[in-house]
């Protein structure tokens, strides 16, 4: 699993520009499914055929990043976030464009206080001396991902884009483990989740699942003076009972709890007063889809150094592989 997540986070797949991530995931999924296709939004839909219930498992491929909106005379790039980038986390970070160009995020007038820090006062420096030089490497509309190198510390994995490549890794691992199953499973790797759950909406419409489980990361509360969130990295995958986008369907939640108990997987519960996942649009697709959210506890979400416990991911996969058989 460590090699898998390293490969997945290494790839640049910023919202709206997920092709490289999709290609990599398609390769990984090939041996375990009967059919793989993409749609107009770039979603990757992998089907393991079956005669029973149609179940959709979803994880988003996109990571937050930036998009260039303007190039000035001196070769500096103006940008805005693709997804919810945080200005504190962005200052002085390095970003990487697909052609390999690296840039550094700077701020007009060194901000004296936090309240002076504003996204529209920031720019990206790619070391070009003029607009002519800059446009040789980058154009308006190009997207870049944050640079956040991968590291392993025992069971803890650090990298950018664990939101939500860890969910993708869980789905791939689930596909590998599931084996014989009556039910039909759609492994859907969605796009543009960070821009507003956009890929999942048409994907769910096309798949028409009878039940869905969404795998994403969710904030852990196990760091110094963290807001009271009894979610700890290493205590198992968290069943997210609710967030701003959805309330997990009680019956699907029960399926996950009973399955976890049956096969002895540690699990915890998460209640989020903020945040959303693809479940928000999948659950209200067509006539409604009973949906639950499974979360990988994660620290420092949306920073270039997100952190998860690899065992939580492994356990999430075990849980899903068994749950889909009992649905």
């Amino acid at each position: 699993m460590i090699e898998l997540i390293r490969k997945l986070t290494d790839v640049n797949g910023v919202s709206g520009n997920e092709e490289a991530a999709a290609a990599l995931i398609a390769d990984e999924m090939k041996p375990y499914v009967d059919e793989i296709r993409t749609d107009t939004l770039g979603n990757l839909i992998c089907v393991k055929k079956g005669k029973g219930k149609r179940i959709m498992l979803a994880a988003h491929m996109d990571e937050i990043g930036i998009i260039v909106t303007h190039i000035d005379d001196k070769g500096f790039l103006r940008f805005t976030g693709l997804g919810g980038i945080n200005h504190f986390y962005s200052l002085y970070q390095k970003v990487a464009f697909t052609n390999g160009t690296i840039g550094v995020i700077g701020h007009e007038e060194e901000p004296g206080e936090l309240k002076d820090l504003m996204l529209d006062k920031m720019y990206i420096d790619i070391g070009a001396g003029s607009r002519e030089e800059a446009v040789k490497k980058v154009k308006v509309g190009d997207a870049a991902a944050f640079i956040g190198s991968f590291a392993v510390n025992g069971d803890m994995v650090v990298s950018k884009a664990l939101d939500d490549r860890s969910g993708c890794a869980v789905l791939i691992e689930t596909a590998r483990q599931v084996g014989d199953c009556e039910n039909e499973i759609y492994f859907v790797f969605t796009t543009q989740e960070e821009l507003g759950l956009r890929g999942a909406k048409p994907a769910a419409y096309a798949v028409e699942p009878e039940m869905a489980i969404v795998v994403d990361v969710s904030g852990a509360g196990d760091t110094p003076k963290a807001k009271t969130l009894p979610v700890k990295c290493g205590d198992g995958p968290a069943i997210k009972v609710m967030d701003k986008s959805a309330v997990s369907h009680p019956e699907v939640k029960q399926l996950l709890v009973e399955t976890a108990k049956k096969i002895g997987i540690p699990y915890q519960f998460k209640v989020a007063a903020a945040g959303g996942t693809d479940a928000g649009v999948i659950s209200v697709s067509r006539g409604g889809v009973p949906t639950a959210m499974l979360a990988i506890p994660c620290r420092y979400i949306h920073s270039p150094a997100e952190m998860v416990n690899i065992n939580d991911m492994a356990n999430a996969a075990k849980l899903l592989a068994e749950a889909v058989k009992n649905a």
Partner: protein
Amino acid sequence: MKDILKQLTGFSGPPGHEKMLTGFISDLFSKYCDEVKIDKLYNVIGIKRANRGSGTRRKVMVAAHIDEISMMVSDVDERGFIRFAPLGGIDPRILLAQETIIHGRKQVYGVVGTKPPHLISDEEKKKPMEIDKLYIDTGMSRDQLASLVEVGDTITFKHHWTELQNGLVSSKSLDNRGGAAAVIGLLQEADRHGHDIDIVCVATVQEEVGLRGAVTSAYGIQPDTAVVIDACHGDMPGLDSDEVFKLGKGPAIAVGPNIHPQLGAYLKQIAVEQGIPYQVDVEAGNTGTDAWAIQVSRSGIPTVLVSFPLRYMHTTVETVSLEDLDYISKLLAYYINNLGGKLEELAL
């Protein structure tokens, strides 16, 4: 009306967990409907077929949401105090000293704690209240709670029904059990006056968290037209008169882009013809009700919205006039009477 409303408001229906009252609603619908079903997200759908032929088998969806604002256990601390998150829009200022029920393995009673006045500094009193600093005290220790309550359990307010002067009543969740009660009233009246169109009444779910039940039920039912019943803001001192509606002076009929202009006009016409008082609710966009979701389902559904004035929305002392709910039931019964014919006339 009063009895049904009292019973309805007594039930707990947190968004996503409306299963707790779908049985009761199903039973109520069954008294008047030919068919009752509960869908995947717990919307309760009752179909009452036309009892006067126009023969075209059109459907009017009548929707009222049954979920209520609630909370959810987000943590149980080492001493057994319960932290919670809101499900739906809750003003934290109503929470101090509230009585709540936690729906765990058993119903557990708890109160939202509050510091005694002797110990609060003037500074603290001025600060805005934050939900994540509040907690519920059940009197039990963490160990005692372990087998009863867990993170993710829902919490609702305890029911206190108060009858005020002039036919006004006060309780939690009148938003929108009042609407549900009006739907039952409508079914009774429709039986009496007849209707040339199938009535599909829907007790929708998860309105408070994003009109979710309305989206999915409308998609499934594909009605020809829809009527939504919900609460609107009742008058109270300190609010501009054009933002609120008087209690006991009849329902508010909405106008604006969310409402089908001809059907809205027809509804007003019926009110005038039948001598039912009404007020006009000008909505310059999103009405914040199931109507917003239903109007754009599939090929679009011509929709009207009727609201009953309700004071102190989203508190445990919501207050309405029973008369307004009766007016709504009657108004809609007259509206639906020849609605099939009217739809033909408007080529809808």
